[in-house]
């Protein structure tokens, strides 16, 4: 009798756990629950931060919304999970989130050992240093930083690049290591460190949040390649493709001049390239191949605009950050953004 109860209990527990572990297709799971669960930064101006009404805004947030728009035709069908650098990969691996867009650098280890896939690059960045020019008037190069205390976020490629850079230049430094941007920001602002290091885009964003932004300068040296991009779990090619082509569609829309305001007129365009991308060609079935509707690009552009619009609104001239396009300009205009064609 007792044994029978035990067997039943164990069986039930086993079944429940196995059901929780099984999830073959992210896309069908997302469609079933009706929204995309997207992991973003806990708060990095320009990339992902809630505004004063609690709406998430930013360049990374836009990519989350674009994926939601591609699936549901509505860029608001997305829930955000703010994540620190440390827990971001675990959250993705465990299935807590469907997609990670958290200014995350694409590296070999992350791509292979961590069981993840990077679905392209949405921002080409590089690591830099910021100092308080008022307190350290003589310093204008990173090579003068020997002996400095440096605030850095733990578990980032930044932390490793920093060690490599100082070692290769035979310089000393004191790392002061924090888990979250906000903690590191506060420590730097209070003078605990002389230097703040992270990706340059991040430095510009963080500078805005300091007490006296004008006192701080970003040093010219860029010490690493930081290709930031959206991340998905390995082993689900359909979902991987969907995220990859959402990003590509945003870049292609910019190439073709499709914008948030003209997308409806563009649908009537005679240009076969534009007709194909916007799902107006009756013989094309790009949406079906990705497992979504044929008007997916129309929905993406309506929700967040093309790549350039999203960039300027969140990071560029339309934002307080005023970051120049630089490398993140289309290949045809001097940058390195080059999306494979939709055809």
């Amino acid at each position, binding site marked *: 009798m007792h044994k029978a109860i035990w067997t039943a209990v164990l069986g039930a527990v086993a079944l429940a756990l196995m059901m929780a572990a099984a999830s073959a297709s992210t896309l069908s799971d997302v469609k079933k629950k009706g929204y995309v669960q997207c992991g973003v930064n806990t708060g990095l101006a320009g990339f992902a931060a809630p505004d004063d009404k609690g709406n998430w805004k930013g360049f990374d947030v836009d990519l989350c919304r674009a994926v939601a728009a591609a699936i549901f035709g509505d860029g608001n069908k997305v829930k955000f999970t703010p994540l620190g650098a440390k827990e971001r990969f675990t959250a993705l691996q465990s299935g807590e989130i469907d997609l990670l867009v958290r200014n995350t650098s694409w590296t070999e280890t992350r791509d292979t050992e*961590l069981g993840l896939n990077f679905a392209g690059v949405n921002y080409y960045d590089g690591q830099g240093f910021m100092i308080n020019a008022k307190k350290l008037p003589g310093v204008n190069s990173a090579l003068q930083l020997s002996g400095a205390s440096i605030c850095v976020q733990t578990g980032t490629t930044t932390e490793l690049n920093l060690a490599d850079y100082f070692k290769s230049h035979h310089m000393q430094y004191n790392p002061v290591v924090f*888990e979250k941007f906000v903690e590191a920001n506060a420590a730097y602002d209070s003078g605990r460190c002389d230097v703040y290091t992270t990706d340059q885009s991040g430095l510009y964003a963080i500078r805005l949040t300091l007490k006296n932004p004008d006192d701080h300068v970003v040093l010219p040296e860029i010490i690493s390649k930081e290709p930031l991009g959206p991340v998905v779990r390995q082993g689900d090619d359909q979902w991987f493709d969907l995220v990859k082509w959402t990003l590509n569609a945003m870049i292609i829309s910019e190439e073709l001049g499709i914008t948030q305001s003209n997308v409806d007129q563009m649908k009537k365009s005679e240009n076969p390239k534009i007709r194909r991308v916007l799902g107006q060609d009756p013989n094309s079935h790009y949406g079906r191949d990705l497992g979504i509707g044929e008007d997916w690009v129309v929905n993406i552009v309506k929700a967040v605009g093309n790549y350039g619009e999203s960039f300027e609104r969140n990071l560029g001239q339309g934002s307080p950050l005023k970051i120049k396009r630089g490398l993140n300009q289309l290949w045809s205009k001097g940058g390195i953004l080059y999306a494979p064609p939709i055809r």
Partner: protein
Amino acid sequence: MASQQKGRASVFYDPKIRGIFFQAVLFFALAAFVWWIADNTIANLRRAHIASGFGFLNGRAGFDVSDALIPYSSDSTMARALLVGLLNTLLVAVTGIVTATIVGFLVGIGRLARNWLVRQICTIYIEIFRNIPPLLVIFFWYLGVLSVLPSPRNSIRLPFDMYLNSRGFYMPAPIWGEGAWLAGAGLLAGVLLAFIVARWARQRQMATGRRFPVLWASIALIVGLPLAAFALTGFPLSFDVPKASIFNLTGGIQVKPEFLSLYLALSFYTAAFIAEIVRAGILGVDKGQTEAAYSLGLTPGPTLRLVIVPQALRIIVPPLTSQYLNLTKNTSLAVAIGYADLVAIGGTILNQTGQAVEIVAIWMVVYLGISLAVSVLMNWFNARTALKDK
């Protein structure tokens, strides 16, 4: 037939056999459950293409740690980085336990003082620190006290070339010259002799009733011998004094604000609990014990030392163990202020390598190990102080 039935029934209802049977069932069910969980985890990790195993510990760490007690660089292994973290955890735990005990005993006795003001101050201290979460106490020290100190260029200068600024507390580092080992040997000899003297004095008092000033003799031995050795070798000691450089003060010994705030916060937080335990312990000794001691002609000093405290310790030690364990486990709050303890460094490795299951397992085993070690030590001490029935 009937007798056979009866025999079977008696075996089935034998409480001893039943007990063994159910324990065996429980054991196997538990073992199967653990095995199943482990198997499930491994299978899922493999399915998700996540590398597993402890091989990553031999890899190059690649990141720097600022407060390493042992030689460490970014070329060291991950295992060594974890060791650095473990030592930092132990450093905070040990210094915190010592300080919390001293402060706790003082405040606990202060709660029972005859002086009204002392009593009230101790009460306020306990009520404030006991009722604030330890994380906030840490933030109080880190953000409220230490980070508002001046920048390194405007350091507060203390006597003997000591400095205080937002980067921590700096003091001169002693540099021992030739022959300094003699002073160390003197110290060792002093401590050893003090023990022997104390033993001899106790035996003599038992035998003859005559007392010997053990305390003063010990102090003279422990301080005097190394000093004499030091003087003999001509004071072979110089100091490395902190000097201002472009960014920080360099040289000397630097105690970083991360360590200071964690150490101070945990010490003062835990001391509040220890104070209450000490008060309860002293109040737990019957008043008749004091009266009996007085009527035997003992003065208040020896009464406290020989009658009250030994009995109070019986009540104090078991809950004190819990407080020591709490303090040790609370050191993991270091993460919040960037002190490189075991959890912080483990977290960094976890993120660089993605070996979450392994790192969490290491964390749990290490904290379990430390806690069990503290428990064993305190249980041994408890057995010594416990009431012995004769």
